[in-house]
């Protein structure tokens, strides 16, 4: 805490120089960037002069800095990004790169000779996405390092998150950017050091919350948008203009320029929301604004406030859809290009997801490289809740008279139908997931077990977990362990020991383990038993007549099994032929369990997890059993098939 205060005080002169967006700094603001850039649309080059600063908030002098040089991922087909994502350029003009033309420190000392590329993740000598600069003299604790850098960024094509397509430009990951200097204890770190990963096909975010002052000069016909707050636009003459933005406490700054953009704005409370899209995309503006406002309200209510007064989102044109579905906190991109019919809420789902990242990774700035689940998993979980709650439970993603699909089911489906469910634990760094399981594990499995956690601890407690997570970790760098600590504290305070000492047993299985969860009903048997109760009295056996009128009793046995290795407590609902029901709980610890009932009625059906709380169960078909196999749905489907075929045949014959 103390160190935090010192850091803030030291950076005050810089940070407060133009304190204009939020009343007080939201974060420690250890880094900041003032960038003057020019876009040359014909060559797709952005040249920039940048003043970047970094505050050493550790107790040790620091002798080097590490910077992301993301665009170099597109400079060679041997880069880690290109190899992993199978990216290749669209012709000779498709390569992308970022070059540092000069780098000097505050004293004017040239640092270009002390730069070298390193590959901390995979040792790939062809990867040039991480730059290490050895400083002539160490940065002392509390001191601020200022670097003046001239760089040239060539945008790649085809677009993968960043790049150009004809005159459409999406300028992301475009400037040399500091890694995060972590002090011992941060995210379970043992010693101080830089955390700066290479650009991987599946992850790119881990940054300090920064202040950005960005000026871009470009031809005046270009319509622009960015993650910053619009400050001013000046005509420069000769067909050029200058746009000035400022952003505070965000983890990344991206911008876009295209002459074809249509722009619409709306307000939600004090937030100005700007939507940029093609002529086609803008027609879906109502649905898009509705979706983003759903998400704003939902997360503001259940997690914490959205603290900025501005938010911009973009639906790229068809040629630029490669930039779609990305998140830069106060700027995000959706997708769909206005082409989806309204009963498929795919574009709205993307909008809600990408906005959600403003919280999960933007405000709660976790490390996406090392713990993708806490970024994509948590965000997918919230996206699914928002989509399904806003558009109707069960119908979130697809709503037709005869077919429906909820967003949560869509996510769960990817996990339960994967054949690689047990391939690894769920806590791997993004690039370590084998056999293309990164997104299934980080998005779908993680969201599925978060829904399961909600099922166990209740929705109310889950919301309180996130309120507390926000309260403790907003504008800091939480790790998975930090999140679990919040869960444990909140569950303990709301439920005591109801689920045990803590919830570690849950995370040990779902996050740090790799077993699957599967409960199944093996069947129900009901046998008539004699209505006389036997009494064994010494050597002689006497029978005592039952005083009940009916003389038929049934012994019903409900047999359950747990084929999966994951152990969770589960509810079991049993129905009898007289219409009565009994709810039981099974701790799931043994491999099987029988429930036995003696009475005048027979058990006729059973449902394990009747309220579908355990989303992790990989097969819900075997969760229930009924002695009556004549289900109306099956009969109705058969009748519908007959009529459909009759009509179709009559249609294809003249």
């Amino acid at each position: 805490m103390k160190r935090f205060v010192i850091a803030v005080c030291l950076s005050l002169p810089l940070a407060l120089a133009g304190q204009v967006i939020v009343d007080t700094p939201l974060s420690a603001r250890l880094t900041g960037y003032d960038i003057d850039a020019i876009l040359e649309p014909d060559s797709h080059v952005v040249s920039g002069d940048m003043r970047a600063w970094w505050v050493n908030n550790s107790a040790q002098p620091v002798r080097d800095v590490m910077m992301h040089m993301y665009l170099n991922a597109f400079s060679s087909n041997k880069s880690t990004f290109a190899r992993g994502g199978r990216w290749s350029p669209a012709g000779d003009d498709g390569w992308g790169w970022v070059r540092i033309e000069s780098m000097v420190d505050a004293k004017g000392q040239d640092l270009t000779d002390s730069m070298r590329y390193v590959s901390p993740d995979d040792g790939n000598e062809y990867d040039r996405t991480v730059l290490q600069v050895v400083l002539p003299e160490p940065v002392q604790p509390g001191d601020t390092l200022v670097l003046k850098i001239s760089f040239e960024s060539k945008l790649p094509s085809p677009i993968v998150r960043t790049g150009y397509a004809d005159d459409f430009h999406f300028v992301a990951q475009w400037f040399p950017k500091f890694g995060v200097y972590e002090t011992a204890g941060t995210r379970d770190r043992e010693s101080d050091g830089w955390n700066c990963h290479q650009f991987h096909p599946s992850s790119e975010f881990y940054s300090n919350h920064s202040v950005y002052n960005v000026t871009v000069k470009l031809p005046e016909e270009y319509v622009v948008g960015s993650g910053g707050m619009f400050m001013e636009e000046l005509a420069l003459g000769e067909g050029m203009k200058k746009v000035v933005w400022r952003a505070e406490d965000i983890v990344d700054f991206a911008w876009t320029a295209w002459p074809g953009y249509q722009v619409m704005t709306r307000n939600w409370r004090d937030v100005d929301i700007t939507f940029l899209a093609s002529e086609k995309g803008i027609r879906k503006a109502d649905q898009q604004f509705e979706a983003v406002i759903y998400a704003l309200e939902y997360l503001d209510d259940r997690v914490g406030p959205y603290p900025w007064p501005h938010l911009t989102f973009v639906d790229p044109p068809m040629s630029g859809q490669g930039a779609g579905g990305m998140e830069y906190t106060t700027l995000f991109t959706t997708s769909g290009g206005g082409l989806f019919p309204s009963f498929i809420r795919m574009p709205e789902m993307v909008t809600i997801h990408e906005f959600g990242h403003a919280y999960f990774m933007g405000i709660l700035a976790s490390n996406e490289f090392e713990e993708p689940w806490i970024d994509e998993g948590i965000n997918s979980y919230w996206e699914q809740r928002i989509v399904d709650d806003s558009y109707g439970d069960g119908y979130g993603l697809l709503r037709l008279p005869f077919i429906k699909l909820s967003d949560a089911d869509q996510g769960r489906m990817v996990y339960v139908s994967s054949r690689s469910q047990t391939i690894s634990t769920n806590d791997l760094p993004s690039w370590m997931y084998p056999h293309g399981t990164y997104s299934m594990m980080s998005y779908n499995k993680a969201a599925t077990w978060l829904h399961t956690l909600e099922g166990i601890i209740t929705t109310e407690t889950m919301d309180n977990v996130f309120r507390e997570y926000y309260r403790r970790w907003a504008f800091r760098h939480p790790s998975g362990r930090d999140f679990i600590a919040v869960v444990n504290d909140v569950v303990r305070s709301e439920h005591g020991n109801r689920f045990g000492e803590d919830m570690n047993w849950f995370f040990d299985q779902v996050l740090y383990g790799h077993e699957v969860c599967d409960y199944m009903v093996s069947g129900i048997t009901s046998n008539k038993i004699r209505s006389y109760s036997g009494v064994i009295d010494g050597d002689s056996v006497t029978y005592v007549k039952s005083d009940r009128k009916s003389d038929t009793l049934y012994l019903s046995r409900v047999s359950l099994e747990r084929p999966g290795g994951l152990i969770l407590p589960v509810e079991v609902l049993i129905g009898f032929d007289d219409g009565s029901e009994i709810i039981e709980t099974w701790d799931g610890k043994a491999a099987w369990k029988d429930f036995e009932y003696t009475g005048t009625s027979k058990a006729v059906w059973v449902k394990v997890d009747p309220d579908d709380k355990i989303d992790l169960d990989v097969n819900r078909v075997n969760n229930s059993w009924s002695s009556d196999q004549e289900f109306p749905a099956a009969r109705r489907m058969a009748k519908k098939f007959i009529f459909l075929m009759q009509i179709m045949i009559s249609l294809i014959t003249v």
Partner: protein
Amino acid sequence: MALLRVLKKGAAAAALSYKQLLVIWVVSLIMILFVSFPLRVMLNAVFGNSMAVMRLTDGFDAGLLGDVGKPFLYLISAASTGGLLLLLAGFLLYTFFAGGLFASYTTAWGGLKMTAFIRESARNFLPFLKVNLLILLIIAGYTLIVLGIPVAARMALAKGSMPEGGSMILFYSIWLLGLPLWLFVADASRRWIAATGSDKAFRAMGAGFRALKERFWVSYGTVLLILIINALFIFISFWYLACSIPEKGGLIFLFLIVTQIMFFIRLFMKAWRYASVCEAVR
């Protein structure tokens, strides 16, 4: 009004052939049951005693797909293969029975005996099949010209994006207004085959086009009117198919009865067109 007289007489002739229509209905129902019954058995095998089928209660819940996995895909592929085979078999079956129907409306004025109906169906089958295929080819080509070219042209102009609904309505309307011409030719050609006993498909088509030229407005108007009524009816059928979700045994049975009556009406309306065209050409 010549048009109304033709429609009235056509309806009367179609009504008189109700026995033949009943035969068509029964035979096609049995044919479909041959596919739907095994599908039903497969569905039961996939779900066994599971109550998960209940998730299909208010429409198909695609979320089930993940749980059922492979067997569901088998079920869907069996249903689609079965459906395609049924369409093919149904096409042949209807072509066959159209032979008997046209014979009814040309020779005996609706009152063919059942044996004669089957005999005439068999006799007319091959030339009818040729006419049907030719007409389908013509309609396909016509669709390509009226709908395909504008779409392709606009896609080329608009750099690969689909033209919007609004401007396409014009082309759909043109397409729909042209459709009765081809249906009339198909019907008049088949009437010619049934009436003359010839098996020359191309000559029959020639006769069909000639008939269209001779009484153009009555011919066109007859088919257009019946087509519009049919289109509305088919729209209602699909709407009912999609939106009706009977829950209980009795209601499901009622659904079956209602849909079968609807289908019989659909058969009748097709016969009405055949009979009306025969009447118009007479």
